């Protein structure tokens, strides 16, 4: 298996500044997106994901300059998510230097949007982000549904049906977040990840719940994820990307150094 499993740090961007950035003492301004990106790149991150958490649409204009500044200096794939609602949003991000955009709510509101986006820009740059939560009770067969609004609102859509459909509609990749695990530091939902990974043709990025390096390995070995995304374990200097890679390599997982 020569293709390396990818480690993707995710940075939250609010109004053009990284709000959960890398906390390194030598960096004067921990909120500078370029500094953060450069640091992760040096540590061996395989890709970078920027999540725009800017609440108001007025401030959304601040994302393009961030991408532009990072893309001029860091030459690994860059994904931008958050607030991608229409074709113009995608074009703006790609023009700024993003390689992929991740679409979440807009796909649920209008699944055809994914098809149009993939037709227009190519599947390689369309990531569909999926927030799933387990809805089956004990004793029932496992079942997950797609949620919106940070996991508060159910759509009633079955998660496996949804990812299969998104694959058919031209998603180039699935970014799967378990809303049960997100923020818990108890590891990915590997049963869910595996189901999704086996259901689709395209690569799956596992997200939500990473608290230590073993969780990353479990997501790949048990969850069959093609890539793992994490935020907090890297942000606060708890672990460096290089440590994560060394851990995975020691567990016979192919990584890039």
């Amino acid at each position, binding site marked *: *298996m*020569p*293709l*390396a*499993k*990818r480690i993707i740090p995710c940075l939250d961007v609010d109004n053009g500044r990284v709000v959960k950035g890398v906390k390194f003492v030598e960096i004067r301004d921990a909120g500078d997106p370029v500094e953060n990106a450069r640091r992760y*790149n040096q540590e061996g991150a*395989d890709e970078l994901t920027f999540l725009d958490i800017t609440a108001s649409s007025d401030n959304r204009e601040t994302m393009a300059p961030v991408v532009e500044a990072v*893309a*001029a*200096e860091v*030459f*690994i*794939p860059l994904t931008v998510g958050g607030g991608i609602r229409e074709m113009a949003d995608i074009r703006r991000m*790609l*023009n*700024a*230097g*993003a*390689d992929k955009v991740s679409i979440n709510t807009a796909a649920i509101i209008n699944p055809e949007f994914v098809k149009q986006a993939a037709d227009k*820009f*190519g*599947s*390689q*740059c369309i990531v569909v982000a999926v927030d799933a939560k387990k809805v089956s009770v004990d004793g029932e067969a496992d079942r997950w549904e797609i949620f919106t609004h940070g996991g508060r609102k159910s759509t009633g859509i079955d998660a496996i049906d949804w990812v299969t459909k998104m694959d058919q509609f031209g998603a*180039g*990749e699935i970014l799967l977040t378990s809303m049960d695990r997100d923020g818990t530091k108890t590891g990915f939902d590997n049963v869910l990840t595996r189901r999704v990974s*086996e259901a689709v*043709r*395209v*690569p*799956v990025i596992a997200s939500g719940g990473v608290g230590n390096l073993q969780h990353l390995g479990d997501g790949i070995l048990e969850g069959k994820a*093609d*890539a793992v995304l994490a935020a907090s374990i890297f942000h606060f200097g708890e672990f460096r990307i290089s440590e994560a890679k060394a851990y995975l390599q020691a567990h016979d997982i192919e990584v*890039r150094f």
Partner: protein
Amino acid sequence: MQSIAVIDYGMGNLRSVVKALEHVAGKNHRIELTSDPVRVLQANRVVFPGQGAAGDCMRAIDEYGLRETIIEAATSRPFLGICMGMQVLIEHSEENRGTDCLGFYPGRARYFGDNHRDSDGEKLKVPHMGWNQLYQRSRHPLWNKIDDGERFYFVHSYYFESDDKNLIVGECEYGYSFTCAIARDNVFALQCHPEKSAEAGLQLLSNFIEWDGQS
């Protein structure tokens, strides 16, 4: 002043290619993203990138009236094809229920398949996406200072296959070995994205800028 034209025919994100070239090029180089045939053929070097599907690429090449320009550039000056810019140099692609391409080299672009597996029977995802090892199969100036087996960033579902084995300068393995870099005379083309392949990719682009077009 040396100039490098990056051919813009509306296919995908070409900003990354331009930015990476700007990053490695010295002050004596001007990078120009252009769809103007005249500008392309005025440049000292030509980069032919591309993303998306073969059918769309070929249609776009013709809509922009660039078919002859691309062929002429590929016969006259250092020419670098990237990703789709490698695949459409071939005669035919299986993509979009069959697409005739530029026919600059014999062969066809083939699909990895919906049920692609490795030798252990493990499912392999398509597209082939991520960092994979590039094995150098023959010496070439563009491999200068790049380790054999170095990882590059790939994203594609089709791969280049030619009976002309002398074209092959690099291979990659994904279920089986496939051609990921070709070269002949003044042309060098590769499946992966040097502009997204960190240091190794930047080195390759830098090698291209210094290359005299002799293989």
